[in-house]
């Protein structure tokens, strides 16, 4: 669904490569998580996948970017955005402001494309239902909580019917309640057949919702693997990403020979409970 081959990029007027020789393959209908320390180039990569680099930001991009069958560099931005949608960090900036109710806000993109009225109405209803925001449709987009606003922002992209959706730290400005809302929506989107790429640093939630995790460090996608194995990888410390306390506790227990060396390290609560249950069930040494 997404195929980045040997992609390197430098912003305009700089000779410093933010990304160099990046390779990424994403299977359709999966949730891919990308983690990286601050300043590792997450936003840049998000913009490359979604076509804003090179179409808007310019700069020097080499390698090939193919998303949903389209070679991004060869199509116009308008075409690129019909293949892949981008949800930015701040819902405040994602909302157009041109509309005074959530219902019209959701339709903004479809109006721009000239979609017929009946079809727009249907798609608005369907998307609102999918994200559970039907009750907000008549409210002002600016009178919502941060979490609700982010759901509206995501809905406003989903309605564009792009098969691929890129989310750049969609929960960074939300409280734990809002964060849960957004992550739960990711799973329903995957069930609806959308391919998701999520840039995040909330490791426990990423473990629960992502299929594959890639690590962005030293201007490359330096490692990847299934979410549990990757997020429990001790090298994440070195790359400035850290680990959950579940992983840290299990690793410490392993060091003290309380857990078996072969046991896979847990990342989330759900991973951890069986590991430690098994330990408790074993007879004392």
């Amino acid at each position, binding site marked *: 669904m997404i195929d980045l081959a040997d992609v390197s990029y430098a912003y305009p007027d700089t000779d410093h490569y933010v990304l160099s020789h990046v390779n990424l393959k994403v299977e359709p209908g999966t949730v891919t998580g990308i983690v990286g320390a601050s300043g590792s180039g997450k936003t840049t990569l998000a913009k490359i996948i979604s076509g804003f680099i090179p179409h808007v930001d310019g700069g020097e991009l080499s390698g090939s970017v193919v998303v949903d069958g389209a070679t991004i560099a060869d199509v116009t931005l*308008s075409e690129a955005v019909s293949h892949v949608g981008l949800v*930015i960090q701040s819902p405040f*900036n994602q909302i157009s402001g041109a*509309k*005074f109710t959530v219902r019209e806000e959701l339709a903004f993109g*479809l109006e721009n494309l000239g979609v017929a009225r009946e079809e727009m109405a249907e798609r608005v209803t369907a998307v609102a239902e999918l994200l559970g925001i039907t009750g907000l449709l008549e409210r002002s987009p600016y009178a919502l909580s941060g979490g609700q606003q982010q759901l509206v922002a995501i809905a406003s992209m989903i309605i564009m019917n792009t098969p691929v959706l890129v989310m750049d730290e969609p929960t960074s400005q939300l409280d734990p309640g809002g964060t849960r809302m957004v992550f739960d929506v990711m799973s329903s989107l995957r069930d609806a057949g959308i391919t998701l790429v999520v840039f995040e640093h909330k490791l426990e939630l990423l473990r629960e919702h992502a299929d594959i995790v890639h690590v962005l460090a030293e201007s490359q996608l330096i490692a990847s693997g299934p979410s549990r194995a990757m997020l429990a990888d001790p090298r994440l410390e070195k790359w400035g990403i850290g680990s959950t306390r579940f992983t840290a506790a299990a690793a410490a227990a392993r060091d003290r020979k309380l857990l078996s060396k072969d046991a896979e390290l847990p990342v989330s609560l759900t991973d951890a409970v069986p590991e430690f249950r098994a330990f408790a069930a074993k007879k004392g040494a």
Partner: protein
Amino acid sequence: MSTTLFDNRKSVIHRLNPVTKLIALLAIIVIVFAIPLWWVAGIIIVVIVVPAAVISGSGGRLLKLSLRILLPILLVLFIVQGLTFPGGTTVIWQWGIIDITSEGLLFALGVGSRIVVLVLASMLLVLTTHPGDLMSALSERGMSPKFAYIISSTLQLIPAFRVRADSILLAQQARGLSLKGSPFRRIKIMLPLLSPLVLGMFTDVEERSTAMEARAFGSTAKRTALIPVPDSTVQNVSRWVLIVLALAAVATPIVLGLL
């Protein structure tokens, strides 16, 4: 959540097609300026503006808001022109070196009556028309969607801008910035206040434009609208009648030789 003066009610006036109201406003303005008789403005106020305001239910707010704008202007107009109108010869009241001329007062009456119509009628339009509806209606008639975007989003941005300005003021005071002092000092403290405001809002622009592009704002397709703007044949006919009336008003003084 926006800064508009829109007074949300369900009257007939509120439900009119915004373009009908806009054309009515323009016709009224053309008529009062084209026919230079103060009582024409008076008749328009009594026969059109006041009844419309009463029907809309926004009359109270209209009166309050318009008075606040009009009172200082009218006061200055009558005093200044009454006293200093260049063509004034007939002195009707004198006190020391101050004379008030009837020509001056008549001139002020003429100008003042037109200003009153201008303010009352446009205020009524603003009070009874949601800006979003006005934009949809104009877009339907071919106005660039960029205008609609800019106007609507500015209206919603201004409150956010104010909130941000307040936070900045607090944040800098919390860093020991004192607001007291000489006028020169007060100008100097503008920098730590204005600079984060401008920087923050303008750097947001990059994200906002990215989000807009992602939602096909750059598309060249013919736009559609989710919610149709209500219209009727009666309104369509009235719009043409209003346009004809306005043109007639422009012709009247020439025909009657008033010029």
